[in-house]
């Protein structure tokens, strides 16, 4: 789960990381009030869960409250890479002397957290990594020992941070790592961490991603999820415990397992069709979960055919069959459906489907067979 910039920065400040004074506005009028309260020039920043907002014109400087209001009016409602801007952050503007990068993430290859710093922070940090990777200083962190002071000194030394700022860097890096661990984050990033006009370090932009598997032990973070900008279907899917991503194609896919779901999508493409979604009903899915998944697929007007591909392991085919039947009791479906059930309790599952004698529903034995039938059905629909 990704946090907005303003959410990340509030979290950072709870771990002793200095951030600019600022507040979130939902309207130009609110932006005016906040800018007036802050006094002096401000930055108006679109709050969207995607990168590249700066280049898209989602970040603007404003010298006066009136100008802040005007900029907020321009930015609110913008569409940035498919994300509608519903909030802007109004931050006190800072003079930027230097832009530093400081981030903690999981290095899956090393199986350890990794903290990275660079004297060349800012929007082009990935380019810095490509062109001169040695300009990014890296320290792997033993998860049992945590980030040690000497490692922060290695970073400060490596990026040639002026010595008078080492103490501030110590506090910020310690805070960032604690924030990462205590939030069960997979990413906690300050970019840029600036040296401001008065020569102090300040975290002017921040990003955090939280490990979804750990949200159960961080209810206060789970509440921060912003569902306002995502498709309603994705919100519904999450509530039902499903993993769903809307795509542009015409074949609705319901599959158990992420790998098989991707392979199923790949197959529809291979046979000339195109998937309407990625949908993984997960392991051990029960009838109600399957019914919810079916409702989400059918709510997409682009869908011309539905492909069920269930390979039963921990999920039992009879339960999937019951789920399909339950959903079809509630939702009238005129679309062609292709069902493939293989694995645990497959005979029972197939028997339930066959006995129900649903119109427009055909069964398939192999994955290729199922994909071809679904593509053909979508074409003729």
């Amino acid at each position, binding site marked *: 789960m*990704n946090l907005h910039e303003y959410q990340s920065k509030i979290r950072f400040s709870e771990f002793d990381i200095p951030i600019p004074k600022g507040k979130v506005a939902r309207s130009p009028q609110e932006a005016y009030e906040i800018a007036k309260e802050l006094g002096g020039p401000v930055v108006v920043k679109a709050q969207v869960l*995607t*990168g590249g907002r700066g280049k898209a014109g989602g970040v603007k400087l404003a010298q006066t409250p009136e100008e802040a209001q005007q900029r907020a009016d321009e930015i609110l409602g913008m569409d940035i890479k498919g994300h509608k801007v519903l909030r802007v952050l109004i931050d006190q503007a800072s003079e930027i002397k230097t832009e530093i*990068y400081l*981030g903690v*993430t*999981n*290095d*899956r*290859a090393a*199986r*350890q*957290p*990794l903290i*990275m710093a660079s004297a060349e922070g800012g929007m082009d*940090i*990935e380019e810095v*990594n490509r062109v001169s990777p040695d300009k*990014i200083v890296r320290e792997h962190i*033993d*998860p*049992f020992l945590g980030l040690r002071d000497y490692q922060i000194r290695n970073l400060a030394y490596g990026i040639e941070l002026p010595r008078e700022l080492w103490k501030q860097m110590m506090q910020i890096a310690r805070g960032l790592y604690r924030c990462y*661990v205590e939030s069960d984050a*997979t*990413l906690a*990033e300050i*970019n840029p961490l600036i040296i401001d006009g008065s020569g102090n370090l300040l975290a002017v932009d921040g990003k955090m*991603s939280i*490990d979804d*598997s*750990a949200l*159960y*032990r961080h209810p206060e973070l789970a509440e921060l999820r912003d569902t306002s900008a995502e498709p309603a279907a994705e919100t519904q899917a999450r509530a039902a415990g499903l993993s769903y991503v809307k795509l542009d194609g015409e074949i609705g896919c319901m*599959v*158990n*397992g*992420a*790998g*098989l779901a*991707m*392979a199923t*999508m*790949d197959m529809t*493409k*291979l046979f000339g069709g195109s*998937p309407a979604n990625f949908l993984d009903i*997960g*392991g*051990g899915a029960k009838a109600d979960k399957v019914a919810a998944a079916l409702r989400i697929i059918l709510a997409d007007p682009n869908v011309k055919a539905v492909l069920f591909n269930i*390979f*039963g*392991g*921990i*999920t039992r085919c009879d339960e999937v069959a019951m789920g399909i039947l339950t959903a079809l009791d509630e939702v009238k479906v005129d679309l062609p459906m292709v069902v493939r059930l*293989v*694995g*645990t309790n497959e005979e029972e599952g197939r028997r339930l489907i066959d006995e129900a004698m649903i119109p427009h529903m055909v069964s398939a034995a*192999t*994955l*290729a067979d199922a994909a071809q039938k679904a593509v053909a059905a979508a074409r003729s629909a």
Partner: protein
Amino acid sequence: MSILANKDTKVLIQGITGREGLFHTEQMIEYGTDVVGGVTPGKGGEWVLGKPVFDTVKAARDATGANASVIYVPAAFAVDAMYEAIDAEIELIVCITEGIPVLDMMKVRARLDHSSSRLVGPNCPGLLTPDQAKLGIMPGHIATPGNVGVVSRSGTLTYEVVYALTQRGIGQTTCVGIGGDPVNGTSFIDVLQMFEDDPETERVVMIGEIGGTDEEKAASYIAAHMTKPVVAFIAGQTAPPGKRMGHAGAIVEGGSGTAADKIAALNAAGVKVAEHPEQIPDLL
């Protein structure tokens, strides 16, 4: 021959009295796996499916001589279950449970590296040596004995491939699902090495997916160390690019992780890569 488990493997079930544990234990026993008992704290002394239940792994191991364990306990307790099995020196631990936080797994992994145990998983279907033993949730009837080793990061996609092999009369030595979590106990390379060393395994199927760089590393390993032919499939060729936030991921993993990268790396290592799962038997 086979790898990791065979008919002589004595298997313990951690979480045997839970709904999923019970269901799959029954299937494991039916398959012929030598399930010697189970562990559910607070239910020691009971019997389920004709097997004794113990309060602790140590007690269960001492009483049964178990050398393998399959974990079906909920995510919030699975980490403790893994540590308990490691501490009891269980040789092979298979963790089916999904949803374990990655920071927890980093610690488990560090502990494993200094232990005598091997962990398969978490968030995996487990493994199956046809007609001998099934440790986990793979449906038994889709596999048949033979000389192809199968290793996969995926769950149900593994079944798909094993099923396709069996349908075409191509049997397997052992099928191993290593799980798709960012940090897990056993890697592609670990299993490829075991297959390379297993006299009965003649060919190997490897099933990967987008994300991470494990397939690329496996390709390097295959090029350098494997004499047996490997056929691969990579899922996610049509998947939309992830909604990645921030730059740290890109800095750590660089440009790799796409299906195209992985396929290129595997091809360069002399590995045939199938266009779809059911094409794998043709390439073997």
